[in-house]
C-alpha cells in the first residue's frame, strides 16, 4: 500500500496541524444529536481553530498556560482544543456532568483536576456553565469561566506568532483512575506526533484518499481524542463524529453511521461491542452495509473473546469482514497506543493453563481438562518502540513468563504534570511501567491483569482475576462486575469479594460465591458483599475501580448509597450545587469589579461578560 511520507517532516503536532490546513478535499463531519451534519474541510477546521486561538490570546492566555475544557458537543470541543494548540496553550479536557445523578462526586473530581492542572481559564457551554460556577472560588488559580460561544465570534485582529518544540506539552490527559489524586499525563508535541504516526501509518497503514473514521468515543478520553481527532489530522484522514450520548441511548447509531458514511475504521471498548451486537437486529434495514470496514479496533478495557465473536457474527450478514476486528493495547502514559494486532487477520486468542499461570507465573498452552483461561492477543508494538516483560528486580523476562508489561520509545509521554514523584515511579530508565501484568509470545503481547491488585494471602500471590473468574461462574452474578481484594485482618490479609447481582438473584448468593471460591481455589472468603447492578464504582469510561471498591468497602460506604439516596436527596444535591454556583458567580463578579482597578485587562474582561 503506498503511504504518504510527507508527514515525516513534521517535528511537532502543531507542524502537522498547520500542514493539514492546506487540505481542502477532506475533513471532519460532526453529527448533532439529530444526526444533522456540520462539515469542515481540514483547511476550514484549522482556520476556525486559529481564530479561536487568537481569542484565547486576547483573553490573556500565553504559551504553556492551561485551559480547562468541559464541552460535551464534539464540534465545539475539537475547534476549541485545536484553537488552544495553535497558540501553544495547553488544553485540559474534562468530562461533562452528564451521568444520571452523581453530581457531588463529579464536582469534587472537577475541582481537583482544575487545582492540579492550575488551569487559568475554564471554557464550557451555556448549558453546563450554571452548574460549574461553584468551582470558580474553589479551584486554585482559576481566574474565569467563559462559554465557548465567545471563542466562536469573529476575531478581526492579529494573533501573536507562537513556536513550539517537540518537548513542549501539547495537552494534559487526566487519567480516570483515582479521584483523590488525579494525575495529568503530559502529552508533548513530540510524543503525540510519534504515536499518531505509529497509529495511522504503522498500525493502520492508512490511505487518506480512501479511509474514513467513524467514532462516537468521548473526546475527553484518549482513545477518542488521539485516535479519532489528532491522529487523523496528522494523516489527513476524514472522520465522522457521532455524539457519545447518541450512541449510549441508541446503540444502533454506531453501525448505521458506519454504513451511511462508508466508514473504514472505527474503535471502541469491549462493552460497546456487546451493546452494538445486542441491537444489531435493528440495524438491518435495507441498504445496511458495513463491508467497507477494514478495522474495528477494540481497546481501553479488558477484551473478552466471546464479546468479539458475538459482534462479528451479528454484523457478518451486513458484510462485516471476519478479519476487521483488531484488538489493541494502550494507555494515556504512552500517549495512546502501545500495540495493535496485525491488520486483515482478525483477532486470535490463546488458552493457557491456569495452574501454571497462578503457581509458576508462566503462560503455558492448556491441555486436556485442566483449568484454563482464554486471553485475547493484542499484537506487537510499533517500529521504533519496545514492549517487554519485566520482573520486580528490573530483569527482562523471556517469552511466556508473566511479569509487568513495560514500554519504551518516542511515544512515551513526559510523565505526570508537576508530579515528579509519580513520574519517577512510572518511568524508570526510559521504561514506562504500565502496572499491567502479562506476557509475550513471539513478540505478541497478552494482558492478564493489573499488578497493583495482586492479592497476597498467607504469603502467596493470587491474581484477583483468577478469583473473579470463579465468582463469575455463579449464576446470578453479573459477568465482569466482580472485584476481589484483600483487607488487613488481625494476623493475615483477608479475602473480600464485592459483586453485582442480577436483579432476580436470591439471598443465598453470597454463600454460593463463598462455596465457588472454596471449591475452585481452596480459599476461604472473609466476606462477600452483593451489590445491585451499577453498585460497583466505575470510571467515566466504565472500568471497574478496584481501589475505590476496597476503600468504599472499608469505610462502609459501598452498597449503602443506593438505599439512602432517593429522589429528594438528589434534588437537594442539585439545588445545593446550583445555589453554590450562583453564589460563587456573584462573588466572582464582585471580585472582578474590585480587580478592575488593578489592570486594564481586567476592565476589558469585566466589561465583556
Amino acid at each position, binding site marked *: 500500500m503506498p503511504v504518504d511520507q510527507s508527514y515525516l517532516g513534521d517535528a511537532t503536532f502543531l507542524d502537522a496541524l498547520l500542514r493539514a490546513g492546506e487540505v481542502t478535499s477532506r475533513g471532519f463531519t460532526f453529527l448533532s444529536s439529530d444526526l444533522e451534519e456540520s462539515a469542515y474541510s481540514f483547511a476550514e477546521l484549522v482556520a476556525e481553530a486559529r481564530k479561536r486561538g487568537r481569542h484565547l490570546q486576547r483573553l490573556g492566555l500565553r504559551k504553556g498556560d492551561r485551559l480547562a475544557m468541559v464541552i460535551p458537543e464534539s464540534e465545539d470541543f475539537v475547534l476549541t482544543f485545536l484553537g488552544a494548540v495553535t497558540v501553544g496553550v495547553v488544553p485540559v479536557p474534562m468530562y461533562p456532568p452528564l*451521568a444520571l445523578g452523581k453530581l457531588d462526586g463529579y464536582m469534587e473530581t472537577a475541582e481537583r483536576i482544575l487545582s492540579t492542572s492550575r488551569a487559568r481559564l475554564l471554557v464550557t457551554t451555556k448549558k453546563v456553565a450554571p452548574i460549574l460556577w461553584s468551582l470558580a472560588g474553589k479551584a486554585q488559580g482559576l481566574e474565569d469561566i467563559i462559554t465557548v460561544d465567545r471563542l466562536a465570534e469573529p476575531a478581526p485582529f492579529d494573533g501573536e506568532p507562537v513556536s513550539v518544540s517537540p518537548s513542549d506539552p501539547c495537552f494534559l490527559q487526566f487519567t480516570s483512575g483515582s479521584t483523590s489524586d488525579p494525575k495529568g499525563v503530559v502529552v508533548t508535541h513530540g510524543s503525540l506526533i510519534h504515536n499518531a504516526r505509529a497509529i495511522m501509518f504503522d498500525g493502520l497503514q492508512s490511505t487518506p484518499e480512501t479511509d474514513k473514521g467513524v467514532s462516537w468515543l468521548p473526546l475527553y478520553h484518549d482513545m477518542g481524542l488521539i485516535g479519532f481527532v489528532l491522529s487523523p489530522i496528522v494523516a489527513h484522514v476524514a472522520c465522522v463524529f457521532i455524539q457519545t450520548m447518541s450512541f*449510549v441511548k441508541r446503540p444502533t447509531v454506531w453501525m448505521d453511521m458506519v454504513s451511511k458514511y462508508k466508514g473504514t475504521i472505527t474503535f471502541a471498548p469491549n462493552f460497546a461491542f456487546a451493546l452494538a451486537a445486542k441491537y444489531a437486529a435493528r440495524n438491518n434495514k435495507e441498504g445496511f452495509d458495513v463491508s467497507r470496514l477494514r478495522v474495528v479496533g477494540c481497546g481501553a478495557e479488558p477484551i473478552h473473546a466471546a464479546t468479539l465473536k458475538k459482534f462479528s457474527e451479528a454484523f457478518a450478514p451486513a458484510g462485516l469482514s471476519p478479519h476487521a476486528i483488531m484488538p489493541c493495547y494502550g494507555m494515556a502514559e504512552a500517549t495512546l497506543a502501545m500495540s495493535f494486532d496485525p491488520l486483515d487477520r482478525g483477532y486470535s486468542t490463546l488458552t493457557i493453563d491456569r495452574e501454571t499461570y497462578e503457581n509458576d507465573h508462566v503462560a503455558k498452552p492448556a491441555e486436556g481438562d485442566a483449568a484454563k483461561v482464554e486471553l485475547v492477543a493484542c499484537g506487537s508494538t510499533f517500529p521504533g518502540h519496545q514492549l517487554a516483560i519485566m520482573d520486580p528486580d528490573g530483569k527482562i523476562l523471556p517469552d511466556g513468563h508473566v511479569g509487568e508489561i513495560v514500554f519504551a520509545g518516542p511515544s512515551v509521554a513526559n510523565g505526570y504534570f508537576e508530579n515528579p514523584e509519580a513520574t519517577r515511579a512510572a518511568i524508570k530508565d526510559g521504561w514506562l511501567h504500565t502496572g499491567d501484568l502479562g506476557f509475550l509470545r513471539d513478540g505478541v503481547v497478552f494482558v492478564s491483569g493489573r499488578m497493583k491488585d495482586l492479592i497476597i494471602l498467607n504469603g502467596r500471590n493470587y491474581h484477583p482475576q483468577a478469583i473473579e473468574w470463579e465468582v463469575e461462574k455463579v449464576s446470578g452474578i453479573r459477568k465482569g462486575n466482580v472485584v476481589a481484594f484483600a483487607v488487613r485482618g488481625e494476623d493475615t490479609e483477608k479475602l473480600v469479594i464485592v459483586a453485582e447481582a442480577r436483579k432476580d438473584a436470591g439471598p443465598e448468593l453470597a454463600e454460593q460465591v463463598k462455596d465457588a471460591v472454596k471449591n475452585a481455589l481452596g480459599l476461604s472468603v472473609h466476606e462477600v458483599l452483593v451489590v445491585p447492578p451499577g453498585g460497583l464504582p466505575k470510571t467515566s469510561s466504565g472500568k471497574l475501580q478496584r481501589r475505590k471498591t476496597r476503600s468504599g468497602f472499608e469505610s462502609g460506604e459501598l452498597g449503602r448509597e443506593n438505599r439512602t439516596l*432517593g429522589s429528594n436527596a438528589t434534588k437537594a444535591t442539585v439545588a445545593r450545587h446550583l445555589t453554590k454556583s450562583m453564589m460563587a458567580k456573584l462573588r466572582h463578579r464582585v471580585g472582578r469589579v474590585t480587580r478592575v482597578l488593578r489592570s486594564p485587562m481586567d476592565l476589558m474582561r469585566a466589561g465583556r461578560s
Partner: protein
Amino acid sequence: MARTDAEIIELFKTAVFEVDNKKLGDVTQQTTLASLGLDSVQTMEVIGAMEEKLNVQFPDEDLATLKSIGDLMNLIHRLSRA
C-alpha cells in the same frame, strides 16, 4: 401529544422489558431509577427507548438531574408543552 402518567408508566415498563427482559412490578412516581436494578448503560438504553416511543429528545443536561419516575414524568410533560 400529551400523555397521562399511567401511559408513561406503561411505556416505561415496556422499555425496561425491551432492554433487560425484566417485568417490573409496581412503579410509582416515587420509584427511583436506581432501585430498578439497571446499570448506567442500561439506564441510558431505557432513556433512549423512551425517547423513541415518545418521539422526543431529552436534553443531556436534564439527564444529570433525573432520579425518579416522577422526575421523568415532569420532564416529559415539560417537553410536550414546549
